[in-house]
């Protein structure tokens, strides 16, 4: 029995279609920017880079390969991977917390990362070079995760309500901490504020590989446990009586999703609403089955965040921080779908 989605597409066809869309957006946005590069040239440059065969570059402006490979692609791929990563992490947090409105920030993970990054920017020590801030952000995120799990676990059981409450409490404390750091930061304060608003500017291939590693490993872990997560939406008792090791699955998925969030936040700063809206939207389109929701979320999340980053990089006259843009577009959009669903529920 092959389940079809709203548009009569099977899982395979749906995934293929969304993957083609993502590739098209990657190629199109690579051509956009201060220097316009024709689409065909972009494809030729990418093909020559992958195949190592430089005869594809004949007749192309010598500066184009440099712009595409060293300047634009790292930023574009990082934006896409972070978008996909935040989206699947959001889908998983919503599934574990049994709450369609949860996102990677509900558990205070991003507040932890922001706190770590703020400390690093305040200290401003020459250690690990440009990876000093991401490293601190990552440590902050992971430390927050374990503290939240510790707060919410009781005799080996973790309840989703406790997780949400602990996350909110810890995030509130950390936000106060960040405000304090900003207060004492003097001239560093603008750097901290800028980092917190998120940006994909000056990303390198190292960022691409780092985020790709975490997001792709996480994706396969999520797919492996997708069916267990479906069953877990029946509640703990029912899921356990259906043979799901609920505690083990919950801890594995929680840690994986948090690590993905931590890596994404540490390379790009705080980018809100992607992890909330994309899974929400996809659940509406392909249904709540995580085996379909996760592939759809990673591809659509990548496409949408890349589009947003391309708008701020190449379309708008001046670049606005990507985190501000996603919140400005995503926030009202979320209010709209939330309101529509309320109305539909009352009318139905």
């Amino acid at each position, binding site marked *: *029995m*092959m389940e079809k989605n709203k548009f009569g597409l099977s899982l395979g066809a749906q995934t293929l279609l969304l993957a083609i869309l993502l590739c098209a957006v990657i190629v199109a946005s690579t051509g956009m920017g201060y220097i316009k590069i024709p689409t065909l040239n972009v494809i030729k440059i990418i093909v020559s880079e992958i195949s190592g065969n430089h005869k594809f570059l004949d007749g192309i402006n010598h500066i184009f390969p440099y712009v595409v490979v060293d300047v634009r692609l790292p930023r574009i791929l990082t934006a896409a991977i972070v978008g996909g990563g935040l989206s699947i992490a959001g889908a998983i947090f919503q*599934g574990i917390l*049994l*709450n*369609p409105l949860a996102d990677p920030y509900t558990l205070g993970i991003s507040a932890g990362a922001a706190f770590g990054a703020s400390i690093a920017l305040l200290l401003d020590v020459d250690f690990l070079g440009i990876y000093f801030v991401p490293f601190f952000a990552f440590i902050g995120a992971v430390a927050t995760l374990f503290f939240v799990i510790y707060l919410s676990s009781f005799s080996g059981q973790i309840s989703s309500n406790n997780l949400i409450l602990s996350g909110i409490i810890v995030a509130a404390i950390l936000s106060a901490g960040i405000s304090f750091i900003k207060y004492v930061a003097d001239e560093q304060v603008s750097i901290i504020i800028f980092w917190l608003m998120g940006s994909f500017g000056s990303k390198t291939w190292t960022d691409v590989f780092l985020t790709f590693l975490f997001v792709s490993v996480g994706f396969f872990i999520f797919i*492996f446990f997708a*069916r267990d997560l*479906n*069953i877990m*939406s*029946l*509640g*703990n*008792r*029912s899921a*356990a*009586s*259906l*043979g*799901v*090791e609920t505690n083990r699955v919950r801890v594995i998925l929680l840690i994986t999703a948090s690590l993905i969030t931590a890596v994404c936040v540490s390379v790009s700063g705080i980018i809100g609403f992607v992890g909330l809206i994309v899974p929400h939207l996809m*659940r509406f389109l392909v*249904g*709540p*089955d995580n085996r379909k929701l996760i592939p759809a979320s990673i591809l659509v999340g990548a496409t949408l965040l890349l589009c947003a980053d391309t708008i701020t990089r190449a379309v708008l006259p001046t670049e606005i921080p990507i985190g501000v843009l996603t919140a400005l577009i995503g926030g009202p959009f979320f209010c709209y779908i939330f309101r529509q669903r309320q109305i539909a529920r009352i009318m*139905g």
Partner: protein
Amino acid sequence: MGFAISHINFSYGNGRVLSDLSLNMEPGRFYGIVGPNGCGKTTLLDILVKNKKPESGTVEYKGKNLNDYTRKSLAKEIALVPQDFYINFPFTVMEIVLMGRHPHIPRFSAPSSKDLKILGAVMAETGIEKFAHRHITELSGGEKQRVVFARALAQDTPVLILDEATSNLDIKYTLNLLDITAGRVKTEGKTVIAVMQNLNLAALYCDYWIFMKKGKIVAHGDIDEALNEENIKEVFEVESKVYFEPYSKSKRVVFKN
């Protein structure tokens, strides 16, 4: 061989919920557990499905300690219809019932034709096929409970545990679901262990009664001997009259104010 419970204890913090409880349960019977609120009925069920572990004492199923079963192998033996359920995601009714086949379907496999056959049969039997494609989130409390009940029937296990599983249902579907369940006990030799609040409903279906109070079993036995005024007085602290009622061909319990 069914369950052999011997000398189990369980407590939450300082409150002892089950104390030194022992009981044997044979296959092919419809067990009813009755007792006042907070007497440990649900905790006992949770221990039987290995959702909680007793602090001391052992529970054996088919002669093997429950701890030696994996969750998955136990899910092929025992199904649970919980008292409360809260599903926040818009799965369709059919998807929910198919989740009952989870322990029988290997990871990354599609449901087999046998799974789909059982799915169809259970949905027809419980009368929920007319809303098979509706979202569970749109159903009423009673409709949801029928879906959750059907999900446990689809699991197709030798043992079915009902934790006040018909509390939200009107009388038609209560009788419908309990008739289906009782039928499986008679024809397929399945075991049902049901916690029930309504003594007269329990009297219609349960052939073996277990009276619980304050974490202990006060009395147990076949309905003919165990269901009597003394036990009801002992457990619930109310006066009653128990008699045989010819129309329902079962014992009735009546109270007066």
